[in-house]
């Protein structure tokens, strides 16, 4: 491994270490807030695999979140299984679903793929609302974690942190492997990718499955943490909106973009709700609008290009206006 890569790894390790200390010095509310940021970072990073790197913008990734949550709930509550097993099964089930639904749906491109995935998520929500095993709209209660309250907060924080590290590590390794190159080739020019020897169907499906796997893991932890899940919150399109906005805001197609995006968006959202008790979502919508008009390439691009001036913002508009 080159020197630069080694350096980067050490820096990352240091950051993870520092972040690990965070719960020890914070109150429960802050730990929960941190866990939420990590959860969104996992989902946004997972979305980034299929949306950012492979160029297939899924509008239904919440379906993997919901599947992960429900598989966990059903296995723990009805089959009495341990969380560890449920967690892995959740990821696996989500990945499997991604492969099954991906085979027909990944043949569609652009807008049609987006809407198909959206339809899948909504259909799944409606299905779960009507099935017996998922208790319909009544929802499922999960067994509580048998630890002192404070330690429960620790547990979920570290589980989510570990999941995020796993997601980013796997993404990083892929980017340097043939599979990662195939994702990007598919995004850049799918026909050219085919003629250069890439089995694009396999590539896309793999990307979608990975995306589903990590999102499912996040859903699993969420279900255990909430100790209760319902179809509405588990499959709401709002979650998809959030993960996409975060990935794009931070920088899609960049490794740390979604994490940065999750951090920024959650911070902004929290700050706004502290200042504006009543209308904070309103200002949040305004922030999203302004951000996308002026910095469509995301925060990472803003930072790496070292362009902090008005000129950069105006340049984006000049390039993109009618």
């Amino acid at each position: 491994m080159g020197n630069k890569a080694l350096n980067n790894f050490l820096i990352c390790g240091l950051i993870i270490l520092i972040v690990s200390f965070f719960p020890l010095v914070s109150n429960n509310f802050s730990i929960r807030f941190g866990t939420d940021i990590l959860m969104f970072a996992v989902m946004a990073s997972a979305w980034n695999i299929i949306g950012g790197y492979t160029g297939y913008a899924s509008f239904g990734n919440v379906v993997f979140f919901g599947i992960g949550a429900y598989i966990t709930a059903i296995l723990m509550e009805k089959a009495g299984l341990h969380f560890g097993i449920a967690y892995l099964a959740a990821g696996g089930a989500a990945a499997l679903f991604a492969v099954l639904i991906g085979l027909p749906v990944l043949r569609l491109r652009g807008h049609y793929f987006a809407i198909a995935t959206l339809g899948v998520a909504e259909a799944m929500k409606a299905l779960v609302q009507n099935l017996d095993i998922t208790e319909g709209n009544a929802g499922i209660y999960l067994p509580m974690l048998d630890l002192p309250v404070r330690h429960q907060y620790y547990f979920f924080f570290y589980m989510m942190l570990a999941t995020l590290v796993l997601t980013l590590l796997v993404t990083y390794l892929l980017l340097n492997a043939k599979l990662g190159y195939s994702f990007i080739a598919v995004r850049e020019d799918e026909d050219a990718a085919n003629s250069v020897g890439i089995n694009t169907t396999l590539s896309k499906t793999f990307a979608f499955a990975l995306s589903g796997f990590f999102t499912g893991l996040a859903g699993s932890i969420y279900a255990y943490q909430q100790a209760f899940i319902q179809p509405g919150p588990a499959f709401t399109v709002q979650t998809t909106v959030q993960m996409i906005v975060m990935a794009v805001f931070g920088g899609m197609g960049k490794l740390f973009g979604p994490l940065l995006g999750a951090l920024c968006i959650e911070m902004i959202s929290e700050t706004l709700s502290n200042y504006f008790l009543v209308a904070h979502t309103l200002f949040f919508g305004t922030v999203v609008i302004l951000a996308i008009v002026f910095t469509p390439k995301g925060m990472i691009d803003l930072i790496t290009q070292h362009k902090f001036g008005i000129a950069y913002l105006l340049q984006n508009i000049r390039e993109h206006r009618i």
Partner: protein
Amino acid sequence: MAILEGKNIIKRFAGLIAVNNVDFHINPNEILGLIGPNGAGKTTLVNVIAGVYAPSQGQIQFKGQTISGEKPYRIGRLGISRTFQVVKPFPGMTVKENAAVGAMFGAGGKKTSAKEAIKKAEEVLAFVGLADQINKHADQLNVPSRKRLEMAKALAMEPDLVLFDEVMAGLNFSEIDQAVELIRKIRENGVTILIIEHVMRAIKNVCDRIFVLHHGEKIADGPVAEVLNDEDVIKAYLGRRYKELTH
């Protein structure tokens, strides 16, 4: 034995017959030119060979194996590479990465890791003369360089047969001569070449044999001098003036 052989190839698109009962073959290490007026079916034929379309009728054999109906990526891995008439680089990747992708997934890809592919890419890019631009993004290149990159991607795949679709279009005379040199070097490395071209200067100087399509049908197939003097070819494509100008 011919390295590529097509028998009774017909390609229809909902009532329009683009390729009409064409027989063709290419011998190993040969440079075969494919010429004809626009709309004659040249690119369609290449698309059929490359697997973009399955032939409506007929069979294509490559190195003794039937490839008609196979998917493009499979044909690429078997040893046939192609370029696109309107070049298709991967814009968001660097020149080096573009070529590396060819090395990773082409015929030579099975035994090549990502790291090795990047090394191979550098070699191929030096071979086509793009060594000084390997770290540029593909969308920053000018037209002749993009054509070179398109060829590099195809060559990085380590093909036995390469299909060049109008790689000379838009080049000036000296650039054409350089490209012709490059094609000769490629053949010297043991690769068989099919080249679709309108640039007669290149066809005359580099091809062993010429194959002419007109309205989807083969109207001539033989040595360069013979074909370029063929009455049917002159009537269909070259024009009387060409014969006068070049004699």
